[in-house]
């Protein structure tokens, strides 16, 4: 357990030195500040287009637009950024050989995988929380009266966090399975596409973790079919634990 804590501390220091931590925080803050700003500025942007003899009708932006924009950017920007920066988390160290000195001192192999996973999860949680504070502040500033209920918002935030957890567990598995980051990215993309494809089966839709990334739209708009959030979260947690378990198994048997 102690070695996990020291290894996480090392990860934090290392990612401060290589600016990855800073990049994540800056981008997440920008997403938090930028989403309400973009929603607010949309009519202005449209006005510029109108001046070019095209008439576009835009409804007055609301807080819900800012939140919609935010979750879209978190999925299409924030999580992808995490993947790009941390996909080589295990494979990079295996390739460089920096783990040899530690493993040959008796550090347990599962401790390496667990530390990497917990560290990225921590980054995701902290960056997500900070960006939430930003969007909440600016949305309240631009639209003091919000039509989005706190209860729904909390649910959507929760779903989004669990989607992040799922992607991170798959990312760690990909990074453990392959030495090349390109294969790891391909593996992750393949898994996510496969899960999208699985949505054609109505019966398993409610268990498919990929739906956590799109649930914010119908939930915020109050449309679509009612979803059993608890089942979806439980299945996502189970999938994540499974991916983590596989990562540990694979790393235990990896020839270094």
């Amino acid at each position, binding site marked *: 357990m102690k070695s996990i804590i020291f290894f996480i501390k090392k990860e934090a220091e290392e990612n401060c030195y290589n600016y990855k931590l800073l990049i994540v925080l800056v981008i997440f803050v920008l997403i938090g500040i930028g989403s309400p700003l973009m929603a607010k500025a949309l009519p202005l942007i449209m006005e510029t287009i109108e001046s070019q003899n095209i008439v576009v009708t835009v409804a007055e932006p609301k807080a819900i637009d800012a939140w919609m924009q935010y979750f879209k950017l978190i999925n299409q920007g924030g999580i992808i950024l995490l993947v790009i920066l941390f996909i080589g988390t295990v494979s990079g160290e295996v390739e460089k050989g920096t783990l040899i000195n530690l*493993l040959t001192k008796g550090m347990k192999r599962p401790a390496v995988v667990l530390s990497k996973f917990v560290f990225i999860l921590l980054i995701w949680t902290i960056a997500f929380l900070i960006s939430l504070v930003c969007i909440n502040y600016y949305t309240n500033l631009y639209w003091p009266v919000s039509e989005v209920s706190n209860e729904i918002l909390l649910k959507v935030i929760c779903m989004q966090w669990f989607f992040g957890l799922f992607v991170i567990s798959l990312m760690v598995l990909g990074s453990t399975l392959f030495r090349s980051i390109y294969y790891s990215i391909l593996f992750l993309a393949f898994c996510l596409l496969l899960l999208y494809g699985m949505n054609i089966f109505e019966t398993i839709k409610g268990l498919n973790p990929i739906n956590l990334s799109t649930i914010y739209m119908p939930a915020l708009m109050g449309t679509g079919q009612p979803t059993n959030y608890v089942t979806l979260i439980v299945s996502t947690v189970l999938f994540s634990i499974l991916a983590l378990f596989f990562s540990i198994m694979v790393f235990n048997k990896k020839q270094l």
Partner: protein
Amino acid sequence: MNILSVLNVSKRFGKYQVLQDISFDIEEGTIFGFLGKNGAGKTTTMKIILGLLKADRGTVQVCGEAVRYGDNSTNRFIGFLPDVPEYYGYMTAEKYMEFCGRITGLDTREAKNRTKELLKLVGLEDHSKKIRDYSRGMKQRLGIAQALINRPKLLICDEPTSALDPIGRKEVLSILQQIKKETTILFSTHILYDVERICDNVAIIDKGSIVLNGKIDEIKRRYKSKSILILFQSEQQKCCFMKILSNREIQANAQGLLVTVKTENVGQTYDFILKKLLEESIIPAKIEIEEPSLEDLFIEVVK
């Protein structure tokens, strides 16, 4: 007591048989030289001992405990210096050492004390620069220090001197000699001189098999010399001597005033030479039975 026992270990990579039934033991308190050409299987053997690679067959025991592939628990007895040690380059030596100490379970004070002690031993106590700015020799010395942080019973060094300049090599060898009191050392190399200088026992590995194993002195005794060296004082003395040898069909090579006589029976030939030198009143500058060097043995067993 044996610190390490390797028994009938075999390993194949694809169609290449890298190790073939190798067995050897290392006694506590000795320096064991693991000698072999590049690609002979030294690093593979070490990685199997460390549980980093899976042996196809055979067993390895460290301090009486069996090594299980993928499980690092026997590594608590071991310190390892890889051939090219890799570090977190943004750290200083002190920080890296303390990190290693904490990972292996030392408390803050112990990790700090041990770091200070070991950095002093390897001559890196005054360096505040980052590891990424270190020279190869400095990295190698830090490698020894990090390997010793948890007071291992067995220190495994994979070619610690191979890529170093003569000064770097001398420094590393003298550090290894100093720590012999505290730990048993398994030391792989293809530099014969290094083995002769510091090792008590040696195993020579060639094409994945152990071809020679034992105490250096015993091996040297076993592989008796087959050469006599005679250094003459003048060209005239040498020519006269060579003539005597050619009449007797004794094989000899001359290099300047130095003549090397090759023979299967050193004692008899030595007596004969002394007798002839006396008869001809030739007084050479030096005459001696050549001590077999490890290099000769190595070449003989791996050819």
